[in-house]
């Protein structure tokens, strides 16, 4: 694929325990300005790949490169201004307000002696507005519903004001309407601000609907990658998930839709 990509994984391998590799010599590009979705069966290394891309998980071999330089050799604060990740199951202390949480996203621009820069307030307001959380800004996180809480966390990563946004299973624990709402928000962020988004999703049909680019993993390797039409085929579904299915065009979006048989 020849699309420009600021963020790349080059031949990364990783094993949590000996003889049980999670990622094997894996190389992927995260195309700039697009929505990339990583799919694959449980324990195929989806989350590990995303966490490695965000320098949360060191790799055994290979390199993650951001703008051509190894992410490990760059200043972590500088990286945090280029790349934000929403990890799985993030936690916040009891009583922390939404606005306080979102303001934590400004950390890479702050320090102990510069706790609140001049554009911090406007960036925080902007992030709250983009996620539709402005009216909830003063409520404690623990008082919010699952969907609202996830929006608050996304607002925090938006306040980080990065061009690249990584989301690790952002729809987990959400019901279908809230999953749709959240993914539409992600789509809107991508269209309105041109942010590069890469996320892990469990639901193939949602992945097909919202992704420009899909990376399908199996056993720590890239099985196939490309547009939803290229990746979501009966052949790949059989190979990745051992799933026999027919594929129809989604009547709403025209994207491939998997119907298990």
């Amino acid at each position: 694929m020849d699309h420009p990509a600021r963020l790349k994984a080059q031949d990364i391998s990783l094993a949590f325990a000996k003889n049980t590799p999670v990622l094997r010599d894996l190389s992927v590009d995260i195309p700039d300005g697009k929505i990339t979705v990583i799919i694959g069966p449980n324990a195929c290394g989806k989350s590990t790949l995303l966490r490695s891309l965000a320098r949360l998980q060191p790799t055994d071999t290979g390199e993650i490169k951001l703008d051509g330089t190894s992410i490990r050799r760059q200043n972590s604060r500088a990286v945090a201004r280029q790349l934000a990740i929403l990890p799985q199951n993030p936690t916040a202390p009891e009583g922390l307000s939404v606005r306080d949480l979102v303001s934590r996203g400004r950390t890479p621009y702050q320090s102990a002696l510069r706790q609140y820069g001049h554009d911090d307030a406007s960036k925080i307001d902007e992030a709250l507005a983009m996620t539709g959380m402005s009216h909830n800004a003063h409520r404690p996180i623990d008082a919010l519903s699952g969907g609202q809480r996830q929006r608050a966390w996304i607002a925090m990563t938006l306040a980080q004001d990065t061009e690249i946004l990584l989301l690790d299973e952002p729809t987990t624990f959400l019901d279908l309407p809230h999953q749709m709402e959240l993914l539409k928000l992600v789509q809107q962020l991508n269209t309105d601000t041109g942010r590069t988004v890469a996320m892990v999703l469990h639901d193939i049909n949602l992945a097909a609907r919202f992704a420009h680019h899909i990376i399908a993993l199996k056993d720590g390797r890239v099985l196939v990658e490309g547009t939803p039409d290229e990746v979501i085929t009966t052949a790949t579904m059989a190979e990745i998930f051992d799933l026999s299915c027919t594929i129809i065009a989604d009547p709403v979006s025209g994207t491939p839709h998997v119907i298990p048989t």
Partner: protein
Amino acid sequence: MTVASGFVTLRLASLSFVLSYRAAILGTVLLAALLIAAASAALTGSYPLPAAQAWATLLGQSNNTADQVILLDHRLPRILTALGAGAAFGLSGAMFQTMLRNPLASPDVIGFTSGAAFGAVMALVLTGGSILLGALLGGAIAALLVIGLSWSAGLQPNRLILIGVGVSLFLTAASDLAMASLDALTAADMARWLIGTLNARNWTDVAVVWGVFAALLPVTLWLSFALNRLNLSDDTVTSLGLPLSPLRLTITVTGVVLVGVGVAVAGPLPFVAFVAGPIARRIIGGGRPAILAAAATGALVTLLADVAARAIPLVHLPTGVFTALIGAPVLMWLLLVQTRKGTL
């Protein structure tokens, strides 16, 4: 100066600091309570001092030797040591609790305080002095031991707490054992000190505890920016570009030194480090670590416990008896709350 949602931002050239109104107001109330408690501790006791008389003594305008001895040689050093040790314990407790995201992870629960006490006892047994050095060394070794034993691909707070409780009990027993080699009189003295006592403090104790506290206060203020983010998950902290391991190391070293100096001047006052943080966080609210408020709360709890200890005449109960009386119910309450929420 701009105001946004209960916060005031103070700016000075390119520097900026955020202060919440609630924290500022309640912090002031806490300091006022401290002052009132300190003043009443100075005036009351088996030898009551009228305020005017005490004030004159303080300014050096009194010729009453008894007043001078009582106030300047006994009560003031005792009060100031209580405040300094309590503040050091409170600060240290809040730092560890925030860093490990668990109120049970305070140095007096996870063995750092017992380590400092054991180090102090060993210093006394082996060299006949250097309690401060022994306490610092003992605290550091206990911290290394607990963190090392609980380390498994990173810091595991729950493992650390369980192992810490075990190490704490072991070191307490070791301290008792080490005292067997002391003569009866010193051993009796040490036994009281091991419960935590502020009896017969002098100005050297005051200088030691306040000197270290003053030196470390800027460090903890600097660390509070990070602590205010370390209370999120490890992944979030890293993703925000903060250096997780160096911060944890700095916090651990600072916290252990604070515990060491507190133990050296007041003994391992039980539960002060433990209760200060949760109380301060509830006062300040908003999910903030409330580091400074925890120092003030620790100081207040210790002073009140000492006033209570002094109020019972003749027996000279160690102050630690009363900090335990305050702290143990809080521990049980937190255990119940955490068990119910499943966060234990």
